[in-house]
């Protein structure tokens, strides 16, 4: 008996105490930053972009919505994206991907991965969800055809009718029950 309890008790306690002390502090500041960003985003009335945490218990996973800007080929379409923040945000960029299929030169049509400089090497801690979403929205109208992720789309970009046809073929409006 003695052996059992003595062998069980200490190892259980030690790692517990070391784990519980440090991460909440880090998580606390990240959570604070994220809820501030949420507040800013909610209060800014930028048309056509929006995002919200998936659940109230986890602030690190968000769902976003981007409407295609008027006057572009994507006008009238709505795309759902998912945003996941790393634990060391904002020092590391969040990961974004399209959940709705998006036919775009810089978007992977099957995986939804996005090729946007500020999400990779140009990331800076001063960016926020709001600025990312705005960049993403403008990327829709002005793709960077120099480094395409979807070469088919890049090829079709100069023929808007064909592009639009292909876009609409693949487009699925976001369903309502994603939650």
């Amino acid at each position, binding site marked *: 008996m003695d052996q059992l309890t003595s062998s069980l008790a200490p190892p259980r306690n030690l790692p517990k105490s070391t784990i519980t002390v440090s991460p909440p502090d880090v998580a606390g500041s990240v959570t604070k930053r994220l*809820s501030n960003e949420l507040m800013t*985003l*909610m*209060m800014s009335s930028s048309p056509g972009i929006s995002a*919200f945490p998936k659940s*109230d218990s986890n602030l690190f996973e968000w769902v976003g919505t981007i409407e295609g800007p008027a006057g572009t080929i994507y006008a009238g379409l709505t795309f759902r994206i998912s945003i996941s923040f790393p634990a060391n945000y904002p020092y590391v960029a969040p990961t974004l991907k399209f959940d709705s299929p998006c036919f775009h030169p810089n978007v992977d049509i099957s995986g939804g991965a996005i090729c946007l400089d500020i999400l990779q090497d140009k990331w800076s801690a001063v960016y926020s969800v709001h600025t990312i979403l705005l960049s993403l929205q403008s990327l829709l109208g002005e793709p960077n055809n120099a480094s395409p992720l979807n070469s088919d789309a890049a090829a079709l970009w100069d023929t808007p009718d064909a592009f639009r046809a292909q876009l609409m073929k693949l487009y699925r409006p976001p*369903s309502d*029950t*994603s*939650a």
Partner: protein
Amino acid sequence: MATTALRAQVAAKWQESFNRMNKGGSGISGLMTFSRAWEVATEFLRPKDISDPASLRQYNLVDIKNAFAAVNQARRLPVMLEVYMDDIRKHQYLITREVTTYMSHYEQLMDPEIIAKLVLRLVEWYDAWAPIPELGHTIRDAYTLTFQTHLFSILPPSFARGFKALCASTLPSVSTDSVVDARPHMWAAFETLGLFDRYEALIASVVYQHIESHVVKTCAGQWAEPVLPNLRDWMSKKVVKWMFSPYARGAKTMEDAALMLQGPGQRFDFHMSKTLCDLRTREIFSIIIDYPDSMGALQDLKECLQRVDQRAELVRTLRRANEMRLLHPGADTKDILTQYVSTIRCLRVIDPPGVLLFKVADPIRRYLRERPDTIRSIVASLVGDGESGDSLVDENEPIHPLQQPETEDYTDPNWEPEPIDAGPDFRANKPSDVISTLVSIYDSKDLFVKELQVLLAQRLLAVKDGNFEKERRNIEILKIRFGEAALQVCEVMLRDMTDSKRIDQHVQSQHASIMHPTIISRHFWPTLESSSIVMPGQFEKLQAQYAKEFSTFKPDKKLRWLPHLGTVHLELQLEDRKVVADVAPLEAAFIELFSEKNVWSLDNLIPRVGSVDRSSALKALATWLDLGVLKEDTENSFRLLEVAEDPTPGARPAISRPGATNFTKNPYLAAHRACAGIAPVTDDLPPASSIHQQQAEQMRVYWKFIEGMLTNLGSLSLDRIQAMLKLAPGYDRTIDQLASFMEAARREELVMTKDEMWRLNR
């Protein structure tokens, strides 16, 4: 064929019986004596018709006794009893006849006296047929049983009614003081006939009714003095006296009587308490209204409740009455609060531990919580607002700091458990501080402090003569209640008032101005209604000038004008007259514009003063119309009256009349002594937005969040929305509040709902 043995046995038996009867007399002489005795005895016992005088005879009791003794010796008494009972049964028709006659008579006249006569007559029958006492209990009892059984079987149902009326007639009358003869012989008769035992419940009910009617008659609406002592007095003088005959019958001494009266007396006393308790319970709502003039009634109720367990009933009645008479939209919040405070005080009298109060107060508190102006009313009465006159707080009551609900101190040697009928969430609020109770309607006192600031802001801005002593005093009082820290903001507000006087003096000394602003610290004041009035002309210049002086005095601060809150003292120099007026800034701004040109249309006026809504613009212009300075020639077109025109009351001239308008000289407009940049407007709207408006403002923030989550997460249930709103800073609404908010949003077609799921209406 009988055997010899049997024959011998029969013969022996016969011989034995014979010997017993003959008693060893010679021959059959013994037998003869017995038969004579038998005859005498049976003749005596035979029931007679007492209404027939012929059948009545006087007996020689000695003979009779001897005869019975003889029968007894021969052990023939049981047989004789059987014969006797048989005889009685045969003659019962006589009694039946008698009862029928009396009862039919009674049914015609409904006079209880007939019943009394019947009873006495029946006693005569009973006595006439009764056996002599020497025969012992057994025969007597058997006789009584037979007689009563028969009697009860023939009494018609109307007898019970008559009997009750008869009993009632013996009671002392409720209205008069005279004591009716209690008629002891009648009660003796009842006892003889066994009527008393049979109708005991009936008799008691007569007394109960009597007590009830007396209590209701003498005590209803009499709340000023305790009535219980008088009632007890009445009981002992009247009712107990009466009780001697029915209940203490057969008592030899006073002690015996007292002992016998104890049982029923307690029952009646209980009933009296219960009746009074019921009465007061019915009246409780009005009693509370009348507090403190109804102190007597409360004392009574307290005493009664200790004797009668009607607490649950009291709570039920009061709750129902409150629901019906108090907690509805027609009742003023002030009245509800007053009644609540009275309820607190009244129920504390009745039930010091506060269990009743807790149960009754709960619905009131819940209701008050839903009323938007509750806090305002409480706060107003806290500071003894003028219009609310009689403050809820008793002036004489010492001011206590707010009590925090304290946890129970089990180490206290005087600790007592919660009362037995306390609910699970009962909190003993021992202290009798009404304000603490009122403040505890809400979960936190922060709400109060916030509303207090709003109220203070209004009152400070309303002070014109610069005397803030009263406000200072109030704040000091409230500090004791709410604590120093909570009222720090109020303290700053007060300081602002005196500071702005000082600053103004300084600025004036540098550069005299006719403007005297009140300078307040934005962070510490509740949100004041903002307005986008731009003062035209000289007002603007005055403001700019003042602001310049101010910024040299206090370089780190900047003035933000709230021009709409001030008042302006104006002198208008018109061609034929001078108009002096104290007006709101908007009105001043408008009239200044008329110095530019004489005719303005409303649509041209509005952009010149920034943006105001049409209705307040019209209202401002109406002031000048009333003063006869402006005239509305056609709709929404206003003309300055350089020369006064005859008022055309009520009539709006349809066509513009050319007339005195063509003067080229502009009116000399002299705006002097613009009293303050901020000073109160006696307007319908309070200058400081109330808590309610602030809440609406907050809700707009939350709407953004709701919109955000519904955009991204699709349709959500109400629970989910409530949970997600935790992400919004400071969200503290209940799900019910959210539900009504969502419902409002649905009415505005912002959202739609399907299967309890909400989504945006797109």
